[in-house]
């Protein structure tokens, strides 16, 4: 049996008196699609940054592909990992084509003596996100959603074994969101790539992921496919002043206490 793609044991980050992440334990097999939900400031992005090797944990142990994370060189780690960080501004004045932006994800992009033909990898990545017709387009002229899909293609262009996504559906409309989650599900099933995705909308991801980890400093609950997330978990994460919503399938979700709009939340179907 092959080693887990990710094995996190007793991970700790931040000062002992007020840890950002405390005693995190997770295990991910090849092809597993994990969603992480939690309130703002819960440590979700920090966890992804630690896995991407951008932030050093204060304690604990992480194995990636059966090898301790600290034993990976930066270059070796990046060959295996694709990372899409939270949406942020890029330099808006640079006349970059879509293909230039995607090419930045290639490990040999920065080496001038390795100007080899990247077209195959670039076009495959763009095709995955349905952007192949916009390869020559000016990135500055794209909509927010098209830019986000381009950034996703950049994360996918190296065909990573582990994909880390921090709110990838930000700026996408609901149809594109659904297409994105379907694509990630397909990549997990067909290529064995594992995905860890931070998202806020559990209703949107619940039918695609294999499991959902509820994170707020600690992992309060790790719900496997078909499992409900108990009401007390939502309260532990978001506080008591929330409106808990149940729907006909017996699932539980939450929203602000002054909003009574029913949602299909909380069930990993």
């Amino acid at each position, binding site marked *: 049996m092959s080693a887990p793609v990710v094995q996190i044991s007793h991970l700790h980050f931040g000062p002992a008196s007020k840890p950002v992440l405390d005693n995190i334990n997770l295990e991910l097999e090849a092809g597993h699609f994990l969603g992480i939900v939690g309130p703002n400031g819960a440590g979700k992005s920090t966890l992804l940054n630690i896995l991407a090797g*951008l932030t050093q944990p204060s304690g604990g142990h992480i194995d990636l592909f059966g090898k301790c994370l600290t034993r990976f060189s930066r270059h070796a780690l990046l060959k295996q990992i694709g*990372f899409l960080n939270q949406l*942020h501004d890029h330099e808006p*004045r640079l*006349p*970059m084509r879509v293909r230039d932006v995607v090419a930045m994800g290639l490990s040999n992009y920065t080496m*001038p003596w390795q100007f080899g033909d990247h077209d195959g990898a670039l076009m495959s990545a763009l095709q995955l996100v349905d952007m192949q017709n916009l390869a020559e387009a*000016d990135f500055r002229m794209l909509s927010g959603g098209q830019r986000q899909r381009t950034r996703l293609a950049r994360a996918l262009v190296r065909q990573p074994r582990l994909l880390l996504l921090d709110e990838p559906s930000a700026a996408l409309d609901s149809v594109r969101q659904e297409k994105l989650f379907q694509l990630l599900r397909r990549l997990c099933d067909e290529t064995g790539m594992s995905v860890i995705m931070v998202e806020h909308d559990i209703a949107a991801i619940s039918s695609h992921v294999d499991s959902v980890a509820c994170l707020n400093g600690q992992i309060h609950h790790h719900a496997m496919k078909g499992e409900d997330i108990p009401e007390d978990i939502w309260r532990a994460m978001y506080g008591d002043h929330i409106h808990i919503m149940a729907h006909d399938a017996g699932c539980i979700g939450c929203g602000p206490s002054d909003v009574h709009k029913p949602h299909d939340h909380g069930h990993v179907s």
Partner: protein
Amino acid sequence: MIDLLTQFWVSAVMREALIPALLIALVTASMSVMVMAHRLSFLTVGVSHASLAGLGFAVTLALPLLPTATIFAVLIALLLALMPKKKGISEDAGTGMLFAGSMALGIVLISNAASSEVDLFGLLFGNILTISSAELNWLYLLSALILLALFLAARAWWSIAFDAVTADASGLPVSSLKLLLYGMVGLTVILCVKLAGIVLTAGLMILPAACAWIWGRSLFSLWLLSVIFSLAGTLLGLIWSYAYEWPSGATVVLTLCLFFMISWCSNWLKCKLV
């Protein structure tokens, strides 16, 4: 016109100045797009003015002018690269302080220097026509270093300019590459001093890319247009300076300013009409 060009070409002084001037134009234009992409225009102003202190030390201690100024400019640029992170001072404030302090130090040192041979006007406003063979060798060395750095790091610098956070996540050593960029800006500033002087160097470092930015539609076209504007501006500027006996550095910068105004107005008209 033909007579003027013939006279320009047969003039030994002009012919000797032409190759180094065009080399400076080529290297500066290539770095100019990086300066614009990384929003380092004020840094070039600061480093060029701060290099007066380096020249002051050279004059006071009877050291070679350009090498001493080069070391000083690179140190100032690296200090500015490190300062914001270490001291919590914003980059523009740090640049402003070093700019004023170093320039004041340079003025005091030069005014106290016993030597009356210092060509202060040449230092401040440049004079490519008086370039010596030692200075020429120094320019060749600096040009080779800057072009090599551009060849090796240009793509990485573009990536960082576009999205530093993702560049970091993609494994680029962003801090080291930024230090290298700042160091190369320091070298380029010194390269320009002989042509445009301390006061006008920023014009050579900013204007070619500013013109290119109006027309460029890809990274390659930005670089190419910047080089074309810079070479054309330098050549035309030298010809005009010869024809009207104007200072060469100032005429080159004025020509580049003219290119920018024509580009900007043409683009404005194009936007209005289309």
